[in-house]
């Protein structure tokens, strides 16, 4: 499984951000969230037409995460990131 430096940082960022959100650190969590969502979206964009079910789950959870962000649902945001992080690992992204 090839892990490019950029994506490795992404996995660590996802884990750290999920932790911050589960801890309800609102200011830090909210400030970091959307830039992270943007970077995840950019990372998976080339694979959206691959037909991979994992990529589909990532895309669904990106949407859920954004919805949770709109409602300041810290647990919702954290959960979506955790699922995204798991799926990115599974499909070797």
């Amino acid at each position, binding site marked *: 499984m090839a892990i490019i430096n950029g994506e490795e940082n992404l996995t660590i960022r996802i884990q750290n951000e999920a*932790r911050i*959100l*589960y*801890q*309800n*650190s*609102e200011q830090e969590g909210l400030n970091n969230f959307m830039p992270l969502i943007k970077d995840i979206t950019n990372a998976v964009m080339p694979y959206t037409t691959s037909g991979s079910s994992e990529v589909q789950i990532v895309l669904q959870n990106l949407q859920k995460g954004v*919805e949770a962000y709109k*409602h*300041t*649902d*810290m*647990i*919702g945001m*954290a*959960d979506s990131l*955790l*699922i995204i992080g798991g799926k990115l690992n599974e499909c070797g992204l």
Partner: protein
Amino acid sequence: MNAVYEKNLEALKKRHYLDGENDKSIEEALSTGQSDIKSLYDINISSDTMDKSIVCITKDGYEYALSSRVDSEGAAEIYAERFNNPEPFETYCLFGLGDGRIARNVLKNLYDNNLLIAIEPDIEVVLTVMNTFDISDLISNDQFYLLIGNPRLYENLQDILEGVINAGTIAPIRFLISPGYDALYYDMCDSCIKMADYVMDAIRINSNTLIKMTDVMNLNTFKNIKYLVEGSDFRSIIDKFKEIDLRDIPAILVSAGPSLDKNIDDLKRAEGKAFIFAVDSAARALENHNINYNAVTTGDAEKEYSVFEDDRTRTKPLIAEISSNYKIIENWKGRLFFDQAAMGYVLQKSILDGVLPHDLGGVETGGSISTNAFSALMSLGFKTIVLVGQDLAFTGGKGHVEGFSDQESDEDLKFRGIEQVEGWDGTMLTTDAQMRYYVRWFEKKIEAVKDDITVIDATEGGAKIQGAINMTLNEVIDTRCTKSCDFDEVLRSVPNTFEGENINKCKDHLKKLPDRLLDYEKKLKKFKEAYIKMSEFIKKGITSGKEFDKTYKVVKEANKTEFKEPLYHLVTSFCLREVYRYKNIVMDKDKPMDEVLMACAQMMDDCINAIEKIIKLIKKEWNWL
């Protein structure tokens, strides 16, 4: 009601939560498992990916899960990691009990002298949780308190914080918010944070007062006890007033602000149709204008006797603290009623424990006699409270009403008046920091009781008090003083605290106080030796063995004396400065243990010296026994 609910309910009953719940609808909901109070939101149970139940709340079509849908237990552990470095004696307020996972994990990290107060805004959430999750371990934990959202939530929070954070334990309150709760219950969360901040400020201000006044308060208490034995208490008035329907009868609280000069004569029209309650400083002005007020109150241990020089004043019913100026008490001709404020707590817990037929009647000390008086009127059950003379600013360049014996000079006012505040009529007025604090006190109190009590500001001047309805006193009298009630007669009929053979029982109990103190002194000497010995063990690196275990057992007992020994409160009131110094050392995590133990030993010595002072005072002041 299923087996899980019953187990949780049993735990609530054992902790006396239901007895202590002052909201009948909440008490009934907990007892029956069903609530008439409609939740703002839809509440349901779902599960995470590990099949563990979680609580979900739907607000405006969006569903918030109060725990992680992926790993509810894991997420709660992560949350608690943020608070895994407690300081001794800290109190934690957790806004949002949810399913109890966060509370349970936070508690695991705490020392045995930390407390966790969980605030659950929604009774429906509590009932759903009690039906689904076994939280009896939490409820049974002595370090855990639960507050449920109701109209008196902020008052209850204030009471509990003031009860657990006493003047000798000024450690911070840490405010935690469970995820989702600030989004779902923003206003309540914000108000609870403000209440916690306010309590910390209040404790700091009150503790400074206590240190300054401790000697005179102790002397006054010991001199005044005689008058409680022969007199009455505030609780007895509260019980008597329960016989009256107060819904349509207002209480008028008369304070001594300069605006009282404007409308003092209007009070004549309210006689017999309102309970006219004067603070000490307003008494002389009322006598000068021949107003028949029903009762007067005092509290300050150093209140100047001159405010009561008028003979007519000293025939009125007086509601006082046991630590009020003894010169006022011993010269009083009218009935005396003592309340629980200030040294009243020491009287109840240490001196008269076991013989008092009931508590003395709580009055919240907001820091001034007016705030005390307001609390007293709330306790009496009035649904409309009218403020008169409550300027809380230097209206018209004056500090008090005409006739006040200690009127401030222009220089005094110039020195004190350093703040600006919005006036009753929108103009800006000069005030000082202390009066600003009292304005804030009234505003918070009015907000806390707004569903139950109407507060009208009929000062017709002074600082604006948010939440109070502004009316002229004449308007109040025309519209609200429509029913008669002979409060003078009601107060005459209030029974004494001790009657018949209980008077002698009380006196016998007081006679035994020196012996009780000497017995406690022996324990304190034993504790002191144990602390010194333990300190030496620690220095030598000894942490086991027969002698160590024996000493440790005594040290453990000594550490609990504050909670187990009734005389502790009396003894420490005679060495308050030392208590503060000692607590500062104990609360410093960086102090080496042997140093902390030596400080504890010194504290025992200070308590022993205090006992000797108390016994001397008893010999001097209690000849009447």
